[in-house]
């Protein structure tokens, strides 16, 4: 192996390490932010005791989680019970490999882009990873050997499978417009006009379906406390439970970043540096997620399924049809 290859591998390794570290820290503070924001929206104060403004609250939460006693109930299927939390987190983290947060920068005298990989099939890769996310939920519910867990898992996997379709169909419009599956190329194609202008319907459909796919309120049926205790992770405690929580928040960041990349022009924007633009957009979407949670009551299960199959799916198909027609007409005129 020559030196150049080693340095390249080293840079990729460092980038992966930084991405994972930033994500984990971001999740900790995202939870804090959510608690404060939801608190304010409900006319409460929220956690403000630990450190200035409660800024050390995430640290305290994590320490508590780590030192909590680990309870393994009787009658669990041990290997699968241990596997499930890992299966929930790993694909979520892996999705981030292809999400571009900025153009190239100079490090160690060589150009390095601000993403880990630019795959020719980037978008498909993200969809593939999100389709693996179902396993974490199904396996957790089944291996726990408890009715509530199992019912919660069945529900939530049905929900995730149903909403995967509208998500993928909604992004097809973007594919048609930019003519590429590579996320970097999709961002570059939005230099002048963001895709949200060309694909308003697609954007709205994507947002709704994405909220449902990551099981966030108002679509958080899997953990409907009143019916299912805590859903698929009822029998988990300590850090294993923490991993499920982690995966939910990472998934939220992933779908938001994907929305920024596909519809909101990625790092493109006037005046401010690209990275700043990227994070402003990401933050706006995450704020929207929190806002939704504080605003809407949970949907009933049959309504949720009807919304997915009878409203979002047909609309997404219509969106594809309209987009394709528009492109054909444009090509004929030009």
């Amino acid at each position, binding site marked *: 192996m020559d030196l150049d290859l080693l340095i390249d591998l080293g840079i990729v390794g460092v980038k992966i390490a930084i991405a994972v570290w930033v994500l984990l820290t971001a999740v900790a503070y995202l939870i804090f932010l959510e608690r404060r924001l939801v608190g304010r929206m409900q006319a409460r104060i929220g956690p403000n005791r630990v450190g200035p403004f409660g800024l050390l609250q995430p640290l305290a939460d994590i320490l508590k989680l780590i030192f909590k006693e680990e309870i393994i109930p009787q009658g669990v299927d041990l290997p699968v019970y241990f596997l499930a939390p890992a299966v929930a987190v790993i694909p979520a983290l892996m999705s981030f490999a292809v999400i571009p947060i900025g153009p190239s920068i100079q490090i160690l005298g060589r150009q390095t882009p601000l993403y880990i990989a630019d795959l020719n099939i980037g978008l498909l890769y993200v*969809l593939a990873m999100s389709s693996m996310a*179902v396993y974490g939920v199904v396996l957790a519910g089944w291996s726990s050997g408890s009715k509530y867990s199992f019912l919660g898992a069945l529900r939530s996997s049905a929900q995730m499978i149903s909403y995967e379709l509208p998500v993928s169909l909604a992004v097809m419009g973007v594919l048609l417009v930019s003519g590429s599956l590579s996320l970097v190329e999709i961002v570059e194609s939005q230099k002048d006009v963001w895709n949200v202008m060309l694909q308003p319907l697609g954007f709205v459909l994507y947002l709704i379906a994405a909220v449902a796919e990551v099981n966030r309120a108002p679509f958080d049926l899997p953990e409907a406390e009143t019916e299912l205790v805590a859903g698929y992770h009822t029998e988990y405690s300590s850090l294993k439970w923490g991993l499920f929580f982690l995966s939910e928040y990472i998934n939220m960041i992933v779908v938001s970043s994907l929305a920024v990349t596909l519809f909101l022009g990625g790092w493109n924007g006037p005046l401010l540096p690209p990275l700043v633009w990227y994070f402003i957009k990401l933050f706006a979407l995450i704020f929207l997620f929190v806002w939704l949670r504080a605003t809407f009551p949970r949907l009933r299960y049959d309504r949720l399924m009807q919304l997915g199959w009878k409203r979002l799916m047909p609309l997404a198909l219509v969106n594809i049809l309209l987009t394709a027609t528009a492109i054909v007409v444009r090509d004929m005129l030009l």
Partner: protein
Amino acid sequence: MLELVIFWITALIGLGSALGVIFARNTVHSALFLVLHLLAQAALYVLLEAHFIAAVQVVVYAGAIMVLFLFVIMMLSLERGEAAGDRVPGQRVWAFGLGLTFLTLLGFSLAQAPIRGQGEGLTPERIVALGGNTEALGRLLFTQYLFAFEVVSVLLLVAMVGAVVLAKRRL
């Protein structure tokens, strides 16, 4: 060198998980080994630079079909995934015979001719020149293999309508 190392690791995982599918006592564990095997296959596709096929393998087989498999297994076997006994009389004998036939066929066809890519000689260099995996595949599907493609889509539509009719007797 690096490629070879990755190949061996993936191949061993693939073979090991394939054996796991057969030897696991618990049907859910079997299904999970099958998922692992499909993922190893996807990794092999990546090594062959067939990125599109790899992604589709994960989305369709590992992500969709196997989840439905797991669903059915979990719903049907209430005894926490314990494998049921023989359902068809003489099941084992039949399974052994059919398996042996398949193995013989496979062995013969492998012995007859080495597996070789055919068609337009789509080497990795040529695929890059065509604009990538997805583009190359799409072009082939919508020109040379258009008829087969349309037939398959009609077939899938029929299957879908059939499934709806079977599931909902009273429309």
